């Protein structure tokens, strides 16, 4: 493959292409407007465009497709040719699912209305999604018939796309499906209990346990085949034993596997149709916790990089910062395949100019290396883009994008990387433990019932006397995050997939663990400490592996609550409950101090280096203006990169002012 995925973009024939792009849906703009629209996208500063390819829009009847023969707006070949002529690189997203605010998410009605393809809920009813202007039963991604139906479209599409794949044309990456993973309904028992999914579940158990005896031992059962093992439909209730929890956790793990399996199946289809000459990528709709597993998708699903989508409002930009913090240590390329530029009309809140201005830098603050702005060209069922449906600038919005692309150049962003001192490890085991106590839910319940009531009560003692509940693990993780933010440590976020070498890059690790952890993770954490790292773990002191057998990796560690323990060249501190003073003392003794501090602890901070330059991001999470002193050792000047103000003289502390929800960026220049 002539294109390689690098941490900061795509390397194409030896040249780096940073993935900053904008979405332009060819079939939603008049064909005669295309040239002007491309020029306008270029004038915003973008050299890469992205589009979906809508299966339902191109399909006239089963096996009969219109790629421009009747409707010139559907002439994908012409659009790709024009993009190439205009010097654009293209990211193409052919589905099968595209959402795209279409009433059927891009599936033809004949597929979507086929009851045999529907995913089923825990009661055996089809899972209905009400979205935009339609209600439809979502398809099961365990069903081979769905992939066969899609393959008919893919085989018709492939000849059109193949001739535009790099080096013949501008297409440099393909997205396999869109936001695959239970249609915004990740709760463990929400779906999928269709016959196809239950067959896949048996296959998963076979893969996991290999021997029926191993399954029966873990589950406390006497099944005669993996097909007999029932899929849990409710969380373990009062009176349930540890084996019921094991079964529930297996179902939670299976939910991750189904996503991986389906993406693997689809990427295989893409390759079989001759589209494997460019990298494949995927996007989860936002969450990075179970059932979404970025690292596994990149390892085993034939996907080269997997990103997260985000449409934050001004007050919620921190979620995007954390998504990027997670991607920057988990994915090969920390990338947002969809990042809000405008919004869909029926969301909870319309994104406006203020939202756009306050959120554009959030992914960069967290360490993102690429963003696709969805949508830079407005269209039906969308509003607030920098260009209207015919490519004319909406001045307020458009000038923000001019400024953003200028900032990328000024900051030399392709060379930047986060300078994170700490790492928050929210273990996948803790996530799965929490998910095992979801309640079954429909989309309607998701709309009406608060999240607190969509959880089942967890019986105490399932994992041993005194073992923390999932809710305590959640509280521990949130406390670790709040601590790092308040102390102005620049930090990354990871799950159990974090590689050993990435752990080593951090001066300290705050790990949220349940009573059971994967042996490999425990081994990596122990090695991290032995090689000089500072490890804080809690709220559990893990004693079990993921099969609930004794954990070997922590053998010999005599951990006592709140007492640091020397392990090799490093130290380990176990806390049953997060204790800010204990952690502060632990880090102080380890000589770890925040490099930069702000006099207002409620402001968020992140530091990046770019070449030899130090970039400082500060975000005001409040809805009132805030000012604070920037404090660092030695004298320095702050050069505004995304901030008003002058390049002032050298000082030891500098006042900065931030408007409500604003993010600003300065280059910190030390002065001797």
């Amino acid at each position: 493959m002539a294109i390689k995925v690098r941490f900061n973009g795509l390397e194409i024939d030896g040249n780096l292409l940073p993935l900053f792009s904008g979405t332009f849906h060819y079939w939603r703009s008049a064909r005669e407007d295309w040239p002007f629209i491309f020029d306008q996208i270029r004038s915003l500063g973008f050299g890469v465009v992205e589009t979906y390819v809508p299966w339902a829009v191109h399909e006239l009847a089963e096996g009969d497709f219109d790629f421009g023969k009747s409707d010139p707006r559907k002439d994908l070949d012409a659009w790709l040719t024009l993009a190439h002529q205009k010097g654009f690189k293209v990211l193409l997203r052919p589905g099968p699912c595209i959402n795209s605010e279409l009433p059927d998410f891009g599936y033809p009605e004949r597929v979507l209305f086929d009851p045999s393809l529907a995913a089923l809920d825990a009661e055996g009813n089809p899972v209905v999604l009400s979205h935009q202007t339609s209600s439809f039963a979502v398809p099961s991604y365990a069903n081979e018939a769905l992939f066969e139906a899609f393959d008919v479209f893919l085989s018709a599409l492939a000849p059109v796309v193949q001739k535009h794949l790099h080096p013949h044309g501008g297409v440099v990456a393909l997205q396999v499906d869109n936001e695959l993973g239970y249609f915004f309904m990740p709760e463990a028992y929400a779906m999928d209990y269709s016959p196809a999914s239950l067959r896949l579940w048996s296959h998963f158990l076979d893969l996991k346990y290999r021997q029926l005896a191993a399954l029966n031992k873990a589950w406390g059962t006497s099944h005669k085949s993996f097909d007999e093992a029932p899929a849990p439909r409710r969380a373990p209730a009062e009176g349930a034993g540890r084996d019921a929890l094991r079964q529930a956790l297996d179902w939670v793990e299976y939910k991750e596997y189904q996503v991986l399996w389906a993406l693997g199946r689809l990427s295989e289809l893409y390759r079989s149709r001759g589209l494997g000459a460019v990298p494949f990528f995927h996007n989860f709709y936002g969450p990075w916790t179970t059932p979404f597993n970025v690292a596994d998708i990149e390892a085993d699903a034939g996907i080269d990089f997997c990103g997260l989508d985000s449409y934050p409002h001004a007050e919620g930009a921190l979620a995007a910062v954390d998504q990027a913090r997670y991607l920057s240590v988990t994915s090969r390329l920390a990338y947002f395949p969809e990042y809000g530029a405008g919004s869909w009309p029926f969301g909870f809140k319309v994104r406006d100019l203020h939202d756009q201005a306050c959120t554009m830098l959030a992914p960069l603050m967290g360490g993102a290396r690429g963003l696709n702005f969805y949508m830079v060209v407005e269209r039906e069922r969308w509003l607030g883009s920098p260009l209207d449906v015919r490519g004319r600038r909406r001045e307020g919005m458009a000038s923000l994008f001019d400024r953003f692309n200028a900032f990328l150049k000024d900051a030399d962003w392709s060379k930047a990387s986060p300078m994170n001192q700490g790492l928050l490890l929210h273990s996948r085991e803790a996530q799965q433990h929490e998910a095992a106590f979801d309640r079954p839910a429909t989309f309607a319940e998701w709309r009406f019932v608060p999240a607190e009531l969509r959880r089942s009560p967890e019986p105490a003692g399932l994992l041993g006397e005194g073992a923390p509940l999932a809710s305590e693990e959640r509280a521990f993780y949130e406390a670790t995050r709040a601590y790092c933010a308040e102390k102005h440590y620049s930090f990354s976020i990871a799950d159990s997939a974090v590689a050993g070498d990435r752990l080593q890059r951090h001066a300290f690790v705050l790990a949220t663990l349940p009573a059971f952890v994967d042996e490999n993770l425990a081994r990596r954490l122990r090695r991290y400490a032995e090689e000089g790292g500072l490890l804080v773990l809690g709220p559990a002191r893990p004693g079990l592996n993921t099969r609930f057998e004794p954990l070997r990796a922590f053998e010999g560690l005599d951990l006592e609550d709140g007492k640091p323990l020397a392990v090799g060249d490093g130290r380990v501190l176990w806390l049953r409950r997060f204790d800010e003073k204990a952690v502060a003392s632990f880090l102080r003794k380890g000589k770890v101090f925040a490099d930069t501090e702000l006099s207002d602890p409620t402001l968020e901070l992140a530091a990046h280096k770019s070449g030899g330059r130090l970039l400082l991001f500060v975000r005001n999470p409040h809805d009132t203006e805030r000012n604070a002193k920037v404090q660092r050792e030695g004298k320095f000047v702050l050069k505004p990169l995304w901030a008003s103000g002058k390049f002032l003289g050298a000082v030891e502390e500098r006042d900065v002012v931030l408007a409500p929800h604003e993010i600003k960026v300065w280059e910190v220049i030390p002065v001797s």
Partner: protein
Amino acid sequence: MLSRHCTIEDLDLDQWKRLASLAMAHWRCRRLFVAHEGGVVRRCLDTVAGEQPLPFAAVTDAQAQAEELLALRRADGVEMVWVLDLEAFHLALSAAQASLDPKAGITDYLALEWAQRFRPGACAVAPAGEYLHYGLPWGRLERFVSRMLPASCTYVLGVFDGDALWASCLVQFQDHKVVGISTSAALEPEDVRDVTGLDQHPFLLAAVANRYRRPAFGWFCSRTDFEAWMLAHTAQDKEEIFQKALMAKRAVFDFSILLDRGMTVLGPINPGEAALAGADRESNPRTRIPDPGEPGPSAI
């Protein structure tokens, strides 16, 4: 009522933001949830204040208890009380999914879901009322659309803040289905330039009728009345606000087309008949897809 393939375009960002904010206010209102299992109360959750002491031990008459609790807590700012058996509620909504008719569209399905929610033992909500969706009394609207409207027409909402058009929504109906939603951004700038205040509403109506070649009718009111109407929790309260505004001449409901189909108030042409006769919109320079060189409606 809402066509699955309804077009949603030419949305003015500020106007739509105002409308959406009011429509979603219904979802953001402060609620008290009393969760029970077969009548035994397990939890009480306030969406603002969090976990609460159990207000009663057992559910005997869910609706009456919800009403009573709302009366008690209204002074604290609670706007709605739900008494629900989480498992029964789940089963009711799960069953609704089995009755989906995908061709019928979202509004039919959501109405079905609404009916299922109130299956005995599942859920009781105070204040009890008609089905509201996005703050709109959906059942009442559906009855109105199916019985009162001509097959092809456009509804115009014009909300004025002083002289300025604060929000607008243009809803096109065809065969009693909503087939298009837009705002005044869909109109030629010169057509709305003179619409400066409530008394100018006929010009807005005429501009819309011409733009979509469908007879138009509409509700025009002050921002204050519109906000009160959208934020009211029951269809009855909405009706009262609507009528009071009409009587005080702070609002106009211009429904002449409902009496005389095909006629618009100041229509220079007769778009209603043209539309009813199935005239091609592309043949009309005012409604066809514009040429690339000329500024289109979304330039406003």
